[in-house]
């Protein structure tokens, strides 16, 4: 007996941010956050 559950593909945040021209800022902030985490 296999239980099959449907999944739906959503628009990713990357796609949404790219559309709004905010992806670059986000990725720069993310890189900064990650580098801060590394230093810990």
């Amino acid at each position, binding site marked *: 007996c*296999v239980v*099959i*559950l*449907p*999944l739906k593909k959503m628009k990713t*945040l990357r*796609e949404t941010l790219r559309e709004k021209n905010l992806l*670059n800022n986000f990725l720069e902030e993310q890189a900064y956050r990650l580098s801060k985490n590394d230093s810990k």
Partner: protein
Amino acid sequence: ITIHPLRNYLDTAYVGNITIGTPPQEFRVVFDTGSANLWVPCITCTSPACYTHNTFNPQNSSSFREVGSPITIFYGSGIIQGFLGSDTIRIGNLVSLKQSFGLSQEEYGFDGAPFDGVLGLAFPSISTKGAIPIFDNLWSQGAFSEPVFAFYLSKYKPEGSVVMFGGVDHRYYKGELNWIPVSQPHHWLISMNHISMNGNIVACSHGCQAFVDTGTSLIYGPTDLVTNINKLMNARLENSEYAVLCDAVKTLPPVIFNINGIDYPLPPQAYITKDKNSCMSIFQGGLENLSPDNWLLGDVFLRQYFSVFDRKNERIGLAPAV
């Protein structure tokens, strides 16, 4: 504290519905092979992300029990903090009784995420102490004839993708499943032999490890190796992403992942994503910050290859998706 540093919610895309409690409260979650905890936002959460997501109200569930232990889960791009609870959880026809799960009271970095919470399907050893993963709980309650689950991620439509539990529906793949042992029973991690283009090895030349991760949509690797692959495509860096001329998709070669001696080609139509008039490479760097020799195969790879996760035999099966 449970740390899952490889998660990347920015690229998460495939979601399904579950219910928690009596009467049931519905949530949209990512079925994530990269982590092992289930969590959803709590009604007491005051973070901005919680105002745009469904929240669980324990007082409205007669079957809820507070476990109380605090939880903190670090993700690549965010953090959730909260406490553990226990309740009845339904995934389709499957019912997990006294299922422990996290209730987030604070969330950072989940604003705008297209899901309420995460349902982790990795091994219990990386789950928060005291929180048995839902697959293990269902397994111990005799819910499955076979302790396996599998993903079919549709290549063409937003609908049509499925996660299946307790067995494999053979209509979703072509040919035979190739089985790959997991490298260690914590993550869904497998050994990869090399990555090649045009017959030349372009990365992972001495072998490497690859996380098979349904919770990430793209492919991640060490920055220098990913940059090399992107340059071989003649991709240019534009706003932190590598872009190619859209016409190039017709001429680019497949990127071939050799796993357990078998080639898994990824055609350019899969590894180049079109957004309006721009065409972007889905190969992303940055993973060396967290692990020097690891790759992360996300939905882009799993749309091409139907994937079976076999807990009993600790192995992953891959076959071309229909």
